[in-house]
């Protein structure tokens, strides 16, 4: 069972199915976020349906590019033998 699940995520032949499932899940999450009952919202953004999706995506992109910028342009990343 484990092997089949793992193969579904690994094998190239399931790529199409995987992608469809992924987009379906993304869609369902946004729909659920719109429909969900919001009891009380502390902050403005909590009232926005789909905010979390937007923030998650934004955070991910920001983290990737800010980190890589710091790594490449600000010299945090060095060749492996740097300390030798």
């Amino acid at each position, binding site marked *: 069972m484990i092997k089949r699940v793992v193969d579904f995520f690994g094998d190239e032949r399931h790529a199409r199915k995987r992608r469809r499932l992924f987009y379906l899940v993304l869609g369902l999450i946004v729909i659920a976020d719109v429909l969900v009952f919001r009891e009380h919202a502390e902050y403005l953004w909590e009232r926005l349906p789909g905010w979390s999706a937007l923030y998650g995506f934004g955070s991910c992109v920001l983290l*990737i590019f800010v980190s890589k910028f710091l790594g490449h342009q600000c010299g*945090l990343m060095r060749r492996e033998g740097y300390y030798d």
Partner: protein
Amino acid sequence: MTDFVHPGLLFILGALPIPFLKGPVRKAYVLLIPTLAILAVLTMHPGGYGAARFIGQEIMMAKVDKLSILFATVFSIMALIGMVYALHLTHAGQHVAAFVYVGSALGVVFAGDYLTLFLFWEGMTFASAYLVFAQRSDQALRAGFRYLMVHITGSVALLGGIILHGFATGSLLFGPIEGGLGFATGLILAGFLLNAAVPPLNAWLTDAYPEATVTGAVFMSAFTTKTAVYVLARAFPGTDLLVWLGTVMALYGVIYAVLENDCRRLLAYHIVSQVGYMVAGIGIGTEMAVNGAVSHAFAHILYKALLFMGAGAVIHVTGRRKLTELGGLYKTLPVTLALYMVGAFAISAFPFLSGFVTKSMVVAAAGQDHRALVVLALTMASSGTFLHTGLKLPYYMFFGTDQGLEAREPPRNMLVAMGMAAVLCIAIGVFPQTLYALLPYPVDFEPYTGVHVTESLGVLMFTALGFVIFLRALDPENTISIDTDWFYRMGARRFMWLAEKPLARYEKAVSDVSETAALPFLHGMARAGLRIDLHGVDAFVNAVARTILAGGGALRRLQTGVVTHYALAMIAGVIAAIAVFAVAWQ
């Protein structure tokens, strides 16, 4: 039946027979002690034990309350899991070190006074360093020494703080520190923050953990930083500084994790990030925030150990640790992958896994405390956590480019240990009330609300979307990252350069000058002095001596010893006196 058996001493004393046991007996024994420790923790009652007086101070070996029981519970469970994972080891050394390490961590958790705390604190440092040295590679030995040096520096600060604090308050009992941060409490806090790996005091962790043995790193990931979280929760709840340090720390870890190529170093950066949530929670200091922080420590120990066990298993079977050299292992290691993913989903806080019910409590507490920035930063760090531990690491380790590595599933004991941790990650996620009941304060928090579930899934799955779109930007690169260890690694090198180049050159120049100029001059001076001494001073002294000698000889001739001579002399004297008197009187 006694009320209290110290589980820490059970481990430390229990370590002694390990080298003398062999084969299955040793295996049974190293599992028996952690099991007994779990029983000891489950059956203990709150109270103070082992009170005594030492150098005029009140000492308390063990102070048992809900907070210490919570940490002791997860520590002893983790010890059992760690021992199962390390069961295949043939040498006793690592078992002994792990036992002393766990025992010392438990000693810190129960310590009722600063002296006991410090004693066990040091025990942890030395025992854990062995787990790095046991890797035996040149790289590991160097990292191990750096680890020791940094921790000893931290311990000196801690001890200094303890002594000053003891003098100021007149008591060494360990408890909440009152009256703000002074110099003494600042030193204690610095010692604690170093072990919690709070930037800029974080680099020892990411430097040493990836160099430790496969089984040793699992223990290390669990104990040092979490004992630090415990002492912070005990002594410094509500310290505002910790909120900011924790928040920065949560993001610091994920930023470095993007750059990392070594699989266990990436995970180590996520320890920094996750401990950030705990430090921030303690800093907020409300009941809910402290509950969140310590419950997150509980959950974190289990899922982080699971992740380290997964990465360790891959290193164990492939001998490789860099993401650039791994890939395509899902075909040969499906069970390892599945178990690793449980840990990855747990750390990322997916619903029905442990991280979801604990991390959210910290974030919710920050929200309740009207700290919007902290909420946003911690949510962003959550996204980063899933991005690396849940997506990047498994993708490049198990999927990605197939490197054609020959591998098979790791020894069964490793898989069983991972299975145990995975079951607990799921159990805590599904039945959070069991964990909540152990927390120091009553819990008024429901993790499974509709909004919370959809929001969490939104953040996580759209992070996955970002990952899929920008996958190529995340390709691991064959580099290392400069962290704050640069200062002492390069600093030590600069110092050695200074000693070997300018200082040595200066020393040589000074000795050259003295040899070519100063020494001959001094020789000449000495010779001249000798000459003056011999021909001047000595000659004068000799002449005086000779004159005195001659005068003495002449005088001796007058003293004939014949009475008539003396009588004659006296008569001559009398006549002379009379003559003088007669002439002078006139």
